[in-house]
């Protein structure tokens, strides 16, 4: 299969030895792009353009305040909060059992991973063991969800490139067609197409239906055969390459300080993958080759995501053949709302969601409700890079750079 040229992989076995030691430059004062954010003393007359919150390419309701010199962005300030629903407050008011459906709606294109991070944090707090079969199912779901999420990203990214009434839509439709088949798979498994409520404390809610594995392998094989087509439509197209290469470059040091994660971080040449460094679910039983690119630009992020789709399909296909027999719940059935009462303490669990490190930090005071529950959304950290990436680019690049970071506002704003 045509794995992208620059994407290389490291195995979990040899990870510590092979990891490149990231140089540590001296710490000094850094020009802060927010200084005096609401005004700008620039040369000449600048046009202030509010891009969003209603705009076709702001991935939901992000508002970017741009100071423009012609079409060149001089300064950019993102404004968030248009989709803030107070999820962290809600989690404090609801019991542990009631929380999983709430976080489903955070990253609404990858619901499985939201639940997984939350549920794993609660399990760690409670000290609950998850049976091996449930861990396998979680891994399969997470990886298929990654493919679905990246497919949606690829389609919308092509739309951002332009051609909502042209080439962009064509790629978008193809990507949605494949994503639809994964949604069908999830529907067969959980009965829902978007907000699955699959994970629960101690295991998973639904066991595999008969014939699901055959169906899934067929879907995986089909998608795997089709991704090269999309590559031939996008990365083989000189217009696409000229609009992505060298645009939105972020260096590894800044990416780390900002907390960029997942594909955004791996596109900067930092080989870090939570699936390998802190194996959770069933990742300790399978080799994960995470894609890596070094340029840190939009094209590198595209390459990493496409390579990740191949890898996720491989992992999911490999795991579905070896799903062990056994129970799917590691504790007695949860019958009341207040059934889960972890002892007082704190836990932080992070997983590698399609967008990066999705973490959950829970504090318990021994009651059936969390004392404090913070979600660490990868999109929020990715958006923090915008003020550094946008100045000096033009309006068309703004849209492309924003799209390449793959933010989901439901998750960033919570």
């Amino acid at each position: 299969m045509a794995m992208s040229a620059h994407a290389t992989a490291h195995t979990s076995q040899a990870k510590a030895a092979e990891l490149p030691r990231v140089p540590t430059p001296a710490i000094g004062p850094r020009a802060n792009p927010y200084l005096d954010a609401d005004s700008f003393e620039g040369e000449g007359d600048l046009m202030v353009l509010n891009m969003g919150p209603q705009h076709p390419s702001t991935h939901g309701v992000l508002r970017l305040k741009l100071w423009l010199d012609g079409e060149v962005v001089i300064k950019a300030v993102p404004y968030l909060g248009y989709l803030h629903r107070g999820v962290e407050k809600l989690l404090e008011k609801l019991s542990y059992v009631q929380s999983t459906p709430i976080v489903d709606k955070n990253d609404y294109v990858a619901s499985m991973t939201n639940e997984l991070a939350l549920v794993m944090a609660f399990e760690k707090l409670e000290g609950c063991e998850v049976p091996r079969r449930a861990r396998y199912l979680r891994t399969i779901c997470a990886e298929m969800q990654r493919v679905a999420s990246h497919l949606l990203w690829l389609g919308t990214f092509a739309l951002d490139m332009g051609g909502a009434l042209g080439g962009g839509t064509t790629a978008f439709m193809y990507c949605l067609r494949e994503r639809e088949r994964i949604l069908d798979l999830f529907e067969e498994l959980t009965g829902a197409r978007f907000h699955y409520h699959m994970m629960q404390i101690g295991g998973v809610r639904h066991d595999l239906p008969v014939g699901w594995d055959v169906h899934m392998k067929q879907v995986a094989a089909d998608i795997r055969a089709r991704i090269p087509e999309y590559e031939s439509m996008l990365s083989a197209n000189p217009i696409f390459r000229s609009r992505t290469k060298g645009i939105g470059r972020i260096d590894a040091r800044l990416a780390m300080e900002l907390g960029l994660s997942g594909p955004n971080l791996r596109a900067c040449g930092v080989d870090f993958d939570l699936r390998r460094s802190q194996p959770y679910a069933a990742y300790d039983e399978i080799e994960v080759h995470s894609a890596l690119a070094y340029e840190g630009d939009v094209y590198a992020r595209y390459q990493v995501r496409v390579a990740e789709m191949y890898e996720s399909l491989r992992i999911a296909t490999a795991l579905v053949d070896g799903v062990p027999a056994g129970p799917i719940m590691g504790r007695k059935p949860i019958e009341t709302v207040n059934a889960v009462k972890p002892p007082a303490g704190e836990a932080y669990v992070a997983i590698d969601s399609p967008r990066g490190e999705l973490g959950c930090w829970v504090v318990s005071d021994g009651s059936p409700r969390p004392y404090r529950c913070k979600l660490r959304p990868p999109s929020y950290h990715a958006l923090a890079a915008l003020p550094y990436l946008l100045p000096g680019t033009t309006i068309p690049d703004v849209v492309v750079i924003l799209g390449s970071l793959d933010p989901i506002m439901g998750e960033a704003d919570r």
Partner: protein
Amino acid sequence: MIGQDVAQIAHERFGLESGELGPSVPRERLLEFASALCEAGYLYLVYISAMHHPATKNGEAEVPARYTVVYRVRDLARGLEFPFRCEVPLGTGVPSVASVWAGADWQEREAYDLVGPVFEGHPDLRRIMLPEDWEGHPLHRDYAINTPHHPWR
């Protein structure tokens, strides 16, 4: 995995004991401690968050209301993590670490917006999730759920 090298630094240079939750760094030495972490290779800022503890009575002694600001940093090359925290009474500022990790900027803004601790030396401490004219901090334990607010423009 908790980074034992930093735990040692914390113990030797700062005299702090770090348990499972990491050391509780006094606010006077927070910036110094953060710089030491960064120099030790912990360049990746995982998150900064905060929680509010209302005043409680512990027997006869009264524990005043306080904020706990929690930090978690990571050394990506070695896969090591290190959490630490800083506890301040209400009304006292926490030094901002935005000069150490660029990402602390938005993290501290979020913590300030939702929970309430004021970060001193932050380049641009504004609300980020809630509208500018919002009153109170929703994740404050004392925040009344029916606090009136202006309609979202």
